[in-house]
């Protein structure tokens, strides 16, 4: 039996702390056995030479190797400075209490480990254990930042702090999808996901280190251009115009998507990625809101047409900047409420986490689109024909608004009414498993990170999907309902990676598409299984 990697090993130089060998990963059932020996392609030699790659087989950030020992020392100094700030009220009032509580009370009982899909699916690789990175940070904190820490280190758990440890920790902060399943099972209430979140913050807010998809191409682009997709307001309007035309073909009547209507009841904010990758989702909302006679609008202001807020995953300041911008746009439009489209992290960022950032007239009421959709269905204003959705459907629960916000039943009540073939995954609801794309993973594609996601972090979700449909013949088309943009992105990628459309006829989409698919009076189905319409 190999020796276990221990927390103190993080600072010991080696080529890598973790390698996934063929057969290590959790086994996939037929007809996917041919993937059981698949491992990550090695990183190119030039990347290994230039970047910090000594954690595992992949890279999320790709930190350049420091050129000199002095540079390394400076980075260590800045890390310690950032760690100090995590425990100061003025710098970290946002999370100080939860952080202190989680840092000081872990009993190291390992209950969290069994709950973590990344740890389980990786073949129990030690560095992916939820407690591993927490324990590293805890030991560094105790040794270097508490009085007498260096003298008591042998007693409380010794660890050396050097650039190797810090570079590995930075990457390791992006091997946890912040699904917080570990925290939900901890008998004490310790939250390893939170500690990971705080690590990401330290690196971003003090050292300027974050994956470029989250920072430069994420929050920075969002605030500068208007959307993390890069779409400026003009491009967003063009996309929506195109969507209107598409929807007219489906409905047979003119669909008007309103922009910047002052005093509307609802400001609907989508994840702008929907406009580009899943335009039918944006269109389906428009069809339903129009048919139900709601007073609503989109905003064409910079940032106002993109609900994403990647700051939630790595940087409180960026989180606050985006949230304030969203609220301010709603305030100036004088809408009665903001409704967040099918985007999980946007729900959590604007409705819940930013709740204690938005004071005075910025505290505009905020609601989940799932709740609004359920109200439309229950109002009886629209007629739905469930037989149009007469195919197997399962529901993916996005962590951000299910386990972390308690929005569990509205989507189910809708599905029970409009999808006769609906069945749950096991487990589901607040016990769900992450899609593997959480906390930014779905949009992080540098180096070979997408492969790591498909092979490791999304593997549990893939197994759950296969299990949900195991009683169905392979030739029957099946629909994975994933009412969240990032989850859809991750599920799209796993279905593609494992060739699941061909092998199991697996398709995916949102919830609102199922509603419009079953809506009375549509000329054409909005859901297609490849080229095959879902109804005729």
């Amino acid at each position, binding site marked *: 039996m190999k020796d*276990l990697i*221990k927390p103190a090993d993080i600072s010991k130089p080696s080529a890598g702390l973790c390698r996934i060998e063929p057969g290590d990963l959790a086994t996939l059932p037929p007809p996917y056995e041919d993937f059981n020996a698949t491992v990550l392609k090695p990183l190119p030699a030039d990347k290994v030479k230039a970047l910090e790659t000594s954690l595992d087989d992949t890279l999320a950030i790709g930190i350049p190797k420091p050129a000199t020992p002095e540079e390394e020392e400076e980075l260590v100094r800045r890390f310690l400075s*950032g760690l100090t700030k995590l425990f100061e009220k*003025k*710098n970290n*009032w*946002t*999370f*100080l*209490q*939860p952080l202190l*509580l*989680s840092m*000081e*009370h872990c*009993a*190291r*009982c*390992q*209950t969290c480990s*069994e*709950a973590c899909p990344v740890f389980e699916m990786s073949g129990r690789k030690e560095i992916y254990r939820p407690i591993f990175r927490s*324990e590293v940070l805890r030991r560094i904190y105790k040794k270097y930042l508490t009085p007498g820490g260096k003298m008591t280190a042998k*007693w*409380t*758990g010794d660890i050396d702090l050097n650039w190797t440890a810090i570079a590995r920790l930075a990457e390791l902060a992006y091997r946890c999808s912040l699904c*917080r399943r570990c*925290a939900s*099972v901890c*008998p*004490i*209430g310790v*939250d390893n996901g939170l500690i990971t979140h705080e690590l990401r913050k330290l690196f971003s807010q003090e*050292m*300027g280190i974050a994956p470029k998809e989250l920072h430069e191409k994420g929050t*920075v682009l969002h605030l500068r251009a208007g959307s993390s997709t890069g779409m400026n307001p003009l491009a967003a309007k063009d996309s929506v115009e195109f969507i209107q035309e598409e929807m007219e073909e489906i409905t047979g009547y003119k669909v008007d998507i309103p922009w910047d209507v002052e005093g509307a009841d609802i400001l609907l904010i989508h994840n702008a990625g929907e406009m580009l990758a899943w335009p039918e989702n944006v269109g389906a909302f428009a069809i339903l809101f129009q048919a139900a006679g709601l007073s609503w609008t989109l905003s064409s202001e910079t940032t106002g047409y993109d609900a994403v807020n990647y700051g939630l995953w790595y940087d409180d*300041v*960026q989180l*606050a*900047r985006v949230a*304030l911008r969203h609220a301010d746009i709603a305030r100036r439009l004088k809408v009665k409420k903001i409704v967040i489209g099918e985007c999980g992290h946007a729900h959590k960022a604007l*409705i*819940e986490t*930013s*709740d204690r*950032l938005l*004071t005075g007239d910025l*505290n505009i*009421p905020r*609601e*989940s689109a799932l*709740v609004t959709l359920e109200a439309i269905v229950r109002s009886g204003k629209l007629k739905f024909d469930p037989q149009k959705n007469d195919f197997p459907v399962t529901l993916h629960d996005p962590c951000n608004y299910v*386990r*972390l*916000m*308690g*929005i*569990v039943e509205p989507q189910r009540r809708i599905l029970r009414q409009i999808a006769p073939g609906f069945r749950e995954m096991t487990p589901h*609801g*607040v016990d769900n498993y992450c899609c593997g794309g959480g906390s930014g993973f779905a949009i992080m594609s540098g180096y070979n990170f997408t492969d790591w996601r498909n092979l490791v972090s999304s593997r549990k979700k893939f197994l759950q999907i296969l299990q949900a449909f195991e009683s169905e013949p392979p030739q029957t088309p099946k629909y994975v309902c994933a009412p969240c943009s990032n989850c859809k992105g991750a599920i799209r990628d796993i279905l593609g990676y494992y060739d699941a459309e061909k092998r199991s006829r697996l398709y995916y989409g949102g919830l609102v598409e199922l509603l419009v698919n079953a809506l009375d009076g549509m000329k054409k189905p909005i859901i297609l299984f490849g080229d095959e319409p879902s109804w005729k």
Partner: protein
Amino acid sequence: MMGYYIFTYLCLAVFAASVLWRIYRQLTLPVHVRWEIYPVQHEPAAKAAYGGSYMEGLNWWKEKRRRSTVNEILYMAPEIGLMRGLWKENRNLWLFSFPFHLGLYLMLVVFALLLLSAVLLLLGLAEDGAVLSIIKGFTIAAGWIGVIAGAAGSLGMLYRRLADRDLRAYATAADYFNLVFLLLFFVCALLTALAADPFFVAARLYILGLLTAGAATPAYAPGQSVPGALTIVLGSLVAAYIPLTHMSHMFMKFFLYHKVKWDDSPLTPGSPLESAVKQNLQYRPTWTAAHIEADGKKTWQDIASSVPKEMK
């Protein structure tokens, strides 16, 4: 004899000071952003059963929030008393952890009962009267179950930490010390009960002596029994030590659950919560990454409302 009393007084003073310090620190921390996890058990039972929240309602901010303290208590009672979470998620560990914690709980119960009976004695209740006899019966039952469960549980926990490679890999010297320390205490208490004080009479006299600074003797003379003396010393040290370590989760779990995991209070206009947040937004951060543009003078509010250079 007085030396034992003084030692126990000192240990209890450390206990009280460290408990108060931990609680005071929590109470004076700034209100944090929301970070709850569902199920939140003060939701009405129907919602708590599946993990639903008030945010499932249309225009939820217009509705009166319904909170169920009863539901919260119904959840927490077996969670604290029977360690339901560990039973559900990590049963192998529960087999050892439950008796270990039961032993500690019952030691607290025994202490409380001894204290009560000592007070009642001082108030003049007859020692052979019904009230004190009932308390004595409970003390004996709780004491015996507690020391046996505690000794078996701490031995089992020590075994698990040594034998299980996953637990061993993360164990520190302090973790082993804690278990050995508690094991020694329980073993000494068990030996005392077996050899010298099966009905906890001497233990009650010691508490009586503690309450009266030795004036209300006949005091227990620990020198008559080595395990008895060790029990007093170790018991006092355990009381002082627990709140200084991660084992303070015994009472800090309140904050972990109520102030983080279940803290779902929405911000309402004009509320004390809003005032607290406004106050937080006046902190002046010093983060040094370029995009933050903090200088120690700008407030959180200034920074959050600004668009830094690279984003213009």
